[in-house]
C-alpha cells in the first residue's frame, strides 16, 4: 500500500502538491507522445497555480496549448482529440467553471463509449481545482464532485497528498475513460514525500491515512489534513480514529471502507461540499446497506452548510467543516 510506504519515508524527498502534479504531467508526457495539455494560461505562464510550469519549454506549443476563455469548446476539442488517438489533459481553472462544460462532459465524454457500443472511448483527463480558501467567494469556492459522481461514464479523482497527486494523475492519464481530476486550492502548497521515480496509482484504490480502532472517518481532498489533525487531538482524548481516504470517488474502494467499518463499527464522513446530496450521503447509503448489522450508531456526516460560500472570511470558515466540527462529529457517534 503506497500510502504506508509514503509514511515511512517522509524524511525523504519532500515536494509541493503542485510540484507532484507537475512531475506526473512531465512523466506521462515523456512516456507517451499522445499526451498533451490545454487550458487557460497554462503554457508560458505555467498555470494559475503553477502546476504546468516548465512544460512548455520541454514539450513545445503543440503539446502545451493556451486557450481562449472558451471552456465548453476546448473541452469538446479535447474529447474529439481523445477519440482520434490523443490523450488530452484539459485544465479548467476552477471547478466552478466546469458548469460551462457540463454538456460536453455529461452528454458527450461520459456517454461516448456507451453510445458507440463500446467501440471507442474518451481517454481524457479533466484537471480542475476546487474548494474554499481565502475569500474567493461563491463562484470560486465550490466543491462540486457530487455532480460528476452521479454521471455514469466518468471517473472521479480527488487526491489529498503530494504522493497521491502524482501517482493518481499518472493513473488518470493512463485510464481509457474520461477522468475528472479535482485538486484543492489549499493543498497546492502542502509538502509531502514524493519519489523521484515513475509510479502510478491505479484508480479505485483507497488508502488508510491513519490506522485506528475506534471509529472510521472517511474523507477526501482537503478534508484529509484537517481530519488528521482532528484525529490527533482525539487521540489525546483516548479516541483512536481510522482515517480512510478513498482517493478516487469513482471507482470507489468499497472494500477498504467496509473492512474498516466492520472493524470499528462507527462511521463519520467528512465532506467540504454542502450536506444535501453530497458524496458523503452516497457513501453513507452504501455503508448502511452493506454493513447495517455492524453499525453501533447512526453514521455522522460532517459537511458544508447548504449555502453558497460567503466572501467574508469568518463566515467562509463556518461554512465548511473545521477541525473542531470534525472532533465534535466523532464524539457524536459515541454519544448516541
Amino acid at each position, binding site marked *: 500500500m503506497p500510502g504506508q510506504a509514503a509514511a515511512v519515508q517522509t524524511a525523504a524527498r519532500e515536494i509541493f502538491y503542485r510540484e507532484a502534479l507537475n512531475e506526473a504531467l512531465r512523466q506521462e508526457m515523456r512516456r507517451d507522445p499522445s499526451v498533451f495539455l490545454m487550458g487557460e494560461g497554462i503554457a508560458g505562464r505555467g498555470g494559475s497555480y503553477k502546476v504546468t510550469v516548465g512544460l512548455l519549454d520541454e514539450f513545445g506549443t503543440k503539446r502545451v496549448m493556451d486557450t481562449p476563455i472558451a471552456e465548453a469548446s476546448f473541452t469538446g476539442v479535447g474529447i474529439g482529440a481523445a477519440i482520434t488517438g490523443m490523450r488530452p489533459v484539459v485544465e479548467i481553472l476552477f471547478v466552478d467553471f466546469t458548469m460551462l462544460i457540463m454538456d460536453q462532459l455529461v452528454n458527450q465524454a461520459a456517454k*461516448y463509449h456507451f453510445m458507440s457500443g463500446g467501440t471507442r472511448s474518451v481517454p481524457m483527463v479533466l484537471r480542475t481545482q476546487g474548494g474554499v480558501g481565502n475569500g474567493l467567494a461563491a463562484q470560486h469556492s465550490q466543491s462540486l464532485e457530487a455532480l460528476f459522481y452521479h454521471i455514469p461514464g466518468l471517473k472521479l479523482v480527488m487526491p489529498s497528498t503530494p504522493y497521491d497527486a502524482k501517482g493518481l494523475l499518472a493513473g488518470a492519464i493512463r485510464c481509457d475513460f474520461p477522468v475528472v481530476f479535482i485538486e484543492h486550492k489549499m493543498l497546492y502548497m502542502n509538502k509531502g514525500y514524493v519519489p523521484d521515480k515513475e509510479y502510478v496509482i491505479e484508480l479505485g484504490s483507497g488508502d488508510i491515512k491513519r490506522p485506528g480502532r475506534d471509529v472510521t472517518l472517511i474523507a477526501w481532498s482537503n478534508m484529509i489534513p484537517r481530519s488528521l489533525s482532528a484525529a490527533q487531538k482525539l487521540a489525546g482524548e483516548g479516541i483512536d480514529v481510522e482515517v480512510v481516504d478513498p482517493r478516487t470517488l469513482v471507482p470507489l474502494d468499497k472494500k477498504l471502507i467496509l473492512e474498516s467499518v466492520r472493524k470499528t463499527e462507527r462511521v463519520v464522513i467528512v465532506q467540504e461540499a454542502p450536506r444535501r446530496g453530497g458524496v458523503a450521503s452516497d457513501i453513507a447509503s452504501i455503508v448502511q446497506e452493506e454493513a447495517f448489522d455492524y453499525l453501533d450508531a447512526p453514521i455522522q456526516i460532517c459537511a458544508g452548510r447548504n449555502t453558497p460560500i460567503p466572501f467574508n472570511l469568518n463566515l467562509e470558515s463556518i461554512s465548511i467543516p473545521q477541525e473542531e466540527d470534525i472532533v465534535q462529529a466523532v464524539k457524536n457517534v459515541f454519544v448516541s
Partner: protein
Amino acid sequence: MIDIKILKNLYKTMYTIRTFELQCIKLYRQGEIRGYFHPYLGEEAIAAGVCAALGGDDYITSTHRGHGHCIARGADLDRMTAELLGKKTGYCRGLGGSMHIADFTGGNLGANGIVGGGIAMGVGAGLSCKTQDQKGISVIFTSDGASNNGIFMESLNLAAIWKLPVLLVIENNQYAVSTPIEDSTAESDLYKRGIGIGVDSFQVDGNDVIAVYSKSLEAVKKCRNGQGPILMEAKTYRHGGHHVNDPGLYMPKDRLEYYKSRDPLILCREYLTETAQVKQDDLERIQQEVESEMDQAIEFAAKSPELTLDEFKKMTEVY
C-alpha cells in the same frame, strides 16, 4: 467537367440516402424502429457532395439528422439498419440508435442528439490531424439551429486561431423544428458569422450536388494546405416535418413545392442525363443496385440478435 464515374457516384450516394430514409420510415411506421428519426430527405446533395471530396483519412462529425452523412462516408447499410432496429450487429450494438450512429471505418465520429454537440469534437479531430501529422482533415456537419448555440462560434474561433484543417458545413434548411430562420436570426446568411471572426466563409446551393461537390473540393484542398478552417453554408430545405412524426404543416406550401421542384436528385439526374450524357439505363441500374442492397440490409437487420443482458452488463461494468 467532373469525371463521369464521380458523377454517377454522387447520384448513387444520394439515391442510397433517399432509399434508406424511405425504407426506414416504413419500418418506423410499422413500429420496428423506435425513438427519434430525423430524415435527411431533400438534403442529400450536401452529404453526398461534401463527402465525395474527402479521402479515407478524413473525419466527420454528424448531427441528429445523420443518416445521410453516415451513408455518404460509405457506411454499410446492413449495420446501419441493424442499429436503427436496436440490434447487436448495428454500428453501436443497438445502444446508440439513429441519433448516435457512428462508423469509425468511415471516420464518422458519430451523430449527436445534442444540437451542436459534435462541433467541438470535430475541431478536436482536426487538432489530432494537425498535431499528429495525420493526413486527414475534419469535416463538421452542423445546422442552422446549431449556429445560434454558443458552441458554434466558440469552436470555430478555436479552429481559426489554431489554423486547423477543419471544414465546417452548415446545413441551413431554414428551420429548427418549426422555428423559421427569420425568427432565430437577424442575419439569415449564416456564413457571415465566419467572416466576423476571420474565417474564410461562403455560401453554396445545398440542393445542387455538383455545386456542393465543386466547392467542397476547393475547400478541402485549402484545408489540406493549411489554409483552414473554412465555413461553408449550404442552403436547403426539408422535404417534410422535423421528424417522422411531424407533419410539418407550418412549412408554407409554395416554398415546399419550390424546393421539391429543386429536389437534389431531380437536379442531379437532369445534369447527368442532359449535360453529362449519362444514359437513363445506367441510372436505373444504379437505382436497382441500391434497392436490392437496401432489401438485404433490412433482412440482415431483422434477422440479427439483440445484445443480451449479460453482454450488456459486461460492457457496462466499467462505469
